[in-house]
């Protein structure tokens, strides 16, 4: 703990990153109770209102919906999906990558080729195709699809860190003690790979926010009326000359969160990996 504080002191940028993440978490949890508008209410008197007009802190869109309310409610869905995605893809990635790397041989080759094929398709296209077929996107389907798109990357990273640890002598020591494969993989090796794996998971967190926002932008993300940051950008694009804030604020929201998480991820990698 003390060590983390010491590192924080040397990396002031990380404090900014963490502050922004905390800000968005508070918004997602308590934001809805702090504002007086709902995300669907249309203020027909004040369409495309400028920020501050008639109590709309960030203004309204072309239908007169409060932008702040939509951004705050939008943060809930995007954070939920991103968090679940990074946990889920890391979990599946570790299990797959560890098994392939540990047993090696044919299983490993098959695994690598399968991952190559998945990786050859851009994740965004892959997700779009699956979502397009399913038609109906919600939090659950978005999570599963984005996770599938991310598994190859996390699995490869997990396989890589397992391979470096596998050659360590403590693994040999466990083998000649007659330990089972599962024990060696998850009790002996896993605790020593948490650093890179956590770093990968936080990086995935940032990527999945980008991905969910992009899917929203392309119209295959969360379905209206649920607000979605990416969708907000595209649906307000026609009014960009009259009400630029309607595009600017959701875009800023996406950018701030993604950058903050990237900074945080860098910091985590410094603390966890360089500690040894």
């Amino acid at each position, binding site marked *: 703990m003390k060590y983390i504080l*010491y590192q924080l002191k040397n990396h002031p940028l990380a404090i900014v990153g963490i502050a922004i993440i905390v800000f968005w978490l508070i918004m997602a949890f308590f934001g809805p109770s702090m504002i007086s508008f709902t995300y669907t209410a249309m203020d027909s008197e004040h369409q495309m209102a400028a920020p501050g007009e008639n109590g709309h802190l960030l203004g309204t869109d072309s239908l007169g919906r409060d932008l702040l309310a939509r951004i705050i409610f939008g943060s809930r869905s995007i954070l939920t999906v991103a968090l679940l995605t990074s946990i889920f893809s890391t979990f599946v990635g570790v299990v797959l990558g560890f098994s392939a790397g540990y047993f090696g041989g044919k299983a490993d080759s098959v695994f690598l080729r399968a991952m190559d094929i998945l990786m050859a398709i851009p994740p965004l296209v892959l997700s779009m195709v699956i979502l397009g077929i399913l038609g109906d996107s919600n939090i659950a389907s978005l999570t599963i699809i984005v996770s599938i798109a991310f598994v190859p990357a996390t699995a490869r990273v997990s396989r890589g860190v397992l391979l470096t640890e596998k050659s*360590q*002598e403590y693994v040999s*020591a466990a083998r*000649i003690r007659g330990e089972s494969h599962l024990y060696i993989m998850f009790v002996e090796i896993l*605790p*020593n790979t948490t650093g890179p794996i956590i770093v990968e998971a936080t990086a995935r967190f940032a990527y999945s926010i980008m991905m969910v926002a992009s899917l929203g932008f392309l119209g295959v993300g969360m379905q209206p009326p649920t607000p979605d940051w990416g969708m907000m950008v595209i649906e307000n694009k026609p009014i960009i000359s009259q009400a630029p804030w309607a595009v600017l604020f959701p875009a800023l929201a996406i950018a701030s969160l993604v950058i903050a998480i990237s900074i945080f991820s860098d910091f985590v990698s410094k603390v966890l990996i360089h500690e040894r």
Partner: protein
Amino acid sequence: MNDNILEIENLHVRFKTFDGLFSAVNNVSLTLGTNESIGIIGESGCGKSTLSFSVMRYLASNASVEGAIRYKGENLLDKTENQMEKYRGNRIAMVFQNPYSSLNPALTIGFQLDEVGMHHQGLSKKKAREATIDALTLMNLGDPKGIARRYPHQVSGGIQQRICIAMSLLCRPDLLILDEPTTALDVTTEAVILDSIKELKDKLNMSLMYISHDMGVINKVAEQVVVMYSGEIVERGPKNLIFENPTHPYTRALINCMPRGGVVKEKTKLNTIPGYVKRRGANEGGCPFIDRCDKRNDTCESKYGMRQIGEKHFAACDRAYATDVPDKLKEKLIPKSREAEQPFDENAELLKVEGLHKIYGTRRKVYAVNGIDFSVHPRSVIGVVGESGCGKSTTGHMVSGLYKPTKGRILFGDTDISIAWNKRSKETLKDIQLIFQNPGRSLNPSHTVEQIIGRAMKKLANMTDAAERRQKIIDILNKVDLGKDYLEKKPRQLSGGEQQRVAIARALSISPNLIVCDEPTSALDVSVQASVLNLLNDLQVDTHAAYMFISHDLNVINYLSDYIMVMYAGKIAEYGKRDEVMEPPYHPYTEALLSAVPEVDPTKQKEPIELLGQLPDPAKKPKGCPFAGRCHRQVGEICEKEYPPMVRFSDSHYYFCHIKP
């Protein structure tokens, strides 16, 4: 101007870290004359490398340096980075410990050496290549043109290091800094390199700064010796004075804890230095050695300081010649406290190995072990010695079950155990334990000491009761001189010696009958090595386990073993009882090995037998005597063509050679 090439004055180097400011080099002053060589010795963590890096101005960004480093009268600490370029690599060159990581594996050797000349001396590509070939010729590398075209991984470690030295000599520097250049190499290679360094020093009129933890090596190359402890110089002076008449208690302790030729376990216990080198805070003063010193008294702190002992001989101790404590140097040997061990049964066989082969790889084959037969008697210690790549570790790993033999049988008692770990019974796994070379890597960094030791007991000795197990673990920790406080610690909180003790405790916790020790002390400092060897020896007397002790260090093998097996290129060269092997008649390889071991006693200098050529290519199926290509006693064509017959001297002593006794 005097003719000192390097003058270091009151040098302080401090590092700012998370744990606060600590001092790595503290008030160090030394001078080095032209064409003089200085040896810097001390255990790891004593600031030797930091000292040499600060001469190159090559320190991490969290370091702060005070004092003066004068190269030919100019203070290097005042230079800007750009000005330093003129010195670094050009006037002052450095050779690092690990040649493999100092050379870029993606570029040819010639290209890397050419760069030096082109960058520092502005030579054209053609001229640079000429300089490169010159430098390689200087190092006596046969076929320099061919070597220049190769990549680093295509030559052996010893040649890589010679290339690194050639690279450092390219600009004909005045000052060459060598940071443990031979530590990673075999003794035979080390002997060759040390000789050429010495020769080149005079030929090129260079000054040398040679850093090593090995007294024997320093004895060979240095004229002046500086002993460092915890960032400070504790003793300095001409080599002969230091080795013949060491004054500082640390120097004495260091000399005494090396197992030297002739020291054997029945007669002596090795001297050790209790404790370990501690990091010092920036403001701590006084004698750094005080908590490990056996001669300290109340006046130590107040009277601390450098004083002159003789001409050019200084030591930082007031009690250097104290008479109220017995002089350990004169009574070098502490008799072993235990009663002599009962002799073991020479006819019983605990482990019997027959025609053991190991071939790695399927398409590109590597012949690691090529048919060896030996047996281990219960309660005895067999020492396996040889250069790296001779198959000694592979043999140990096959016995302990990490690898399955390609051919041949391993019999343990009545059971055939020529199978890998996953097929062995719990009993066998329990009975044969393995201690690894690097304790830091053989203990899981995420587990506590209690988990590490307890797991083996739970898994193999069926001790399921946690409380009972914990009590047993504490008992064992006490046996290896660690206490109950260590239960909750994790390996990275322990020093190297402590880690190896935990590894030993883990092996012993389930009372095995055979412990395979794979170079258990080669990653440790000499003082720690001594205490680990003492411990292994005591424990062997107590537990009656047999050891198969693998090491490249003949002194260590000689100290601990009852039997010695000399291996070369996957074959046994010589086998016999310790005294039989250590005395003539020798196998020519044993003779060469023995001659290459650096001697600590300056009066007993000897000429090493230079082994020319390289180890036989392990990818080719061996034919004839594997040693023939390097042998200095080759008798004729028969050596290349026919595998030598076994020559027996006694029931237990034999070697494989065409030379008849």
